């Protein structure tokens, strides 16, 4: 325990390809702020605003955060972070904070999907796909745009299906045409949509099988907010999945937990990190940014 002067805060910043997430925790690892905002090329400033908003929720200034860890696709370009940690590490840590018993983590984000195998609180294997839109949130978005349906409605309609159709195309672009063709032939929208959710889940589960799937499985990422996808994942996995109440922020949460560890390790070594050099400025994503 610290000596009751100023309370300690730790932040995790996860700059994903679609969304930016910031989590602030306190010394007792209580969640004090969780903010999500779009990243995107046109939304660079928004990524920064997410941090400002999180600080506002706690009612503190940037200098009051003892240590900041950045993760995600755009992590190298967060000028106010003390350290960068890969998203795989942060993600696993965040999920383990919420579900200490987890063995398999499946994460489906806006533009990627990954599966992690955990043993004794360590990552023993992982696999990712960020090369192909199939089996990522982008697939669902493309179909939603095509049908001019919000993702939420698409999920709800899909859950009414009793007889999901089989989408045979793997490629998002081909599947888009397959969906249109089914509908033009008079297929029920719910059956087509259920087939589409099933195809997405099947693709991710097939990938995850390559590293071995063992229950308990935790399903995270923005796509885990979609009830039809949760059901499709359970059908394809043959076991129930656990979904965090906020499945988007696990990476940022893990980054904040790692920030807390790092701070204490450095302090124990007598090296308290200086926070004065932080710049709360525009985050650049495509200039010298690294993936994974």
């Amino acid at each position, binding site marked *: 325990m610290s000596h009751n002067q100023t309370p300690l805060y730790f932040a995790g910043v996860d700059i994903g390809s679609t969304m930016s997430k910031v989590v602030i925790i306190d010394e007792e690892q209580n969640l004090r702020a969780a903010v999500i905002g779009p990243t995107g090329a046109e939304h660079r400033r928004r990524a920064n605003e997410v941090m400002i908003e999180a600080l506002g929720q706690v009612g503190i200034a940037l200098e009051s955060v003892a240590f900041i860890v950045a993760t995600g696709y755009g992590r190298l370009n967060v000028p106010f972070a003390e350290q960068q940690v890969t998203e795989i590490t942060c993600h696993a840590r965040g999920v383990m904070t919420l579900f200490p018993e987890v063995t398999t983590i499946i994460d489906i984000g806006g533009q990627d999907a990954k599966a992690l195998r955990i043993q004794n609180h360590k990552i023993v294997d992982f696999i990712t796909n960020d090369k192909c*839109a199939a089996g990522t949130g982008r697939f669902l978005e493309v179909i939603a745009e095509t049908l001019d349906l919000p993702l939420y409605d698409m999920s709800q309609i899909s859950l009414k299906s009793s007889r999901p159709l089989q989408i045979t195309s793997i490629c998002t672009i081909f599947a888009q045409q397959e969906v249109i063709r089914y509908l033009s032939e008079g297929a029920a929208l719910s059956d087509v949509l259920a087939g589409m959710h099933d195809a997405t889940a099947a693709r991710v589960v097939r990938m995850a099988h390559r590293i071995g799937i063992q229950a308990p499985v935790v399903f995270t990422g923005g796509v885990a907010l979609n009830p039809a996808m949760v059901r499709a994942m359970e059908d394809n996995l043959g076991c129930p999945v656990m979904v965090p109440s906020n499945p988007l922020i696990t990476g940022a949460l893990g980054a904040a937990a790692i920030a807390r560890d790092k701070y204490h390790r450095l302090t124990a070594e007598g090296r308290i990190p200086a926070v004065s050099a932080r710049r709360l400025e525009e985050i650049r994503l*495509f200039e010298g940014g690294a993936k994974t």
Partner: protein
Amino acid sequence: MSLFMGIDIGSITSKGVIICENQIAAYATLPSGIAYRATAEKLKDHLLGSAGIGSEEIKAVTATGSGGSQVGFADYHASSIVCSARGIMAVFPLVRSVIDIGGQSSQIISLDDKGQVIDFAISEICAAGSARFLQVIARILQIDLQDVGPLSLKSSNPVNFTTGCAVFGETEAISRIAQGVPPEDILAGVHKSIADKIHSMAMGVNLKPEYALSGGGALDTGLVKRVQDTMGLSLLLPPMPQFVTAQGAALVAKERWNN
């Protein structure tokens, strides 16, 4: 005088020809849409109208392409691989390797001296390596497909796309446009991505000279040049590359009719 018809229902565009003594006497194209059966009927009417003949004058019809099986009036059906092979041999008898760049899939075919298919590779799992990627990007750039080739040839600094995926490519292209990258560099980058994919597909096929291109993708001068440079091959270009497969289908109709 024997007339034969070839109908090629592609994923994006449908092509049809009537041949007389192995040469194209009439040709027509239509967007395939989603009702292939109706599209094929309309295409047949266009062809007959253009040739100024009645359907009874056509001895036989072969249908091919991804929607070929839905052509109700066809006497025969054949794969697009076989039809592309037959078609290219009618245009260039010395060709032994064909690279067909279609709206949604690309094919690499190796032939023997009689025009029989020895080996082939086809990109059917995804839109990468097909002209579909180009269509997606041309749409967001608001550039007509016929302008893509000439414009792309002005590029000095093609964009490197991180994946061949057409969906991710679209997102990446939008980011590049936002950064002020000129359209010619984006288009040349798409050509590069397609050419790389075709090149890697071709590695698995034993190709021999002469080499030719076919398919609608061969109408894009920028893509043709990029494929040629990437593969380090000199490629023969038919005058109407998009009709090669339909012509081949008509030749298959003739062969089967005569046997």
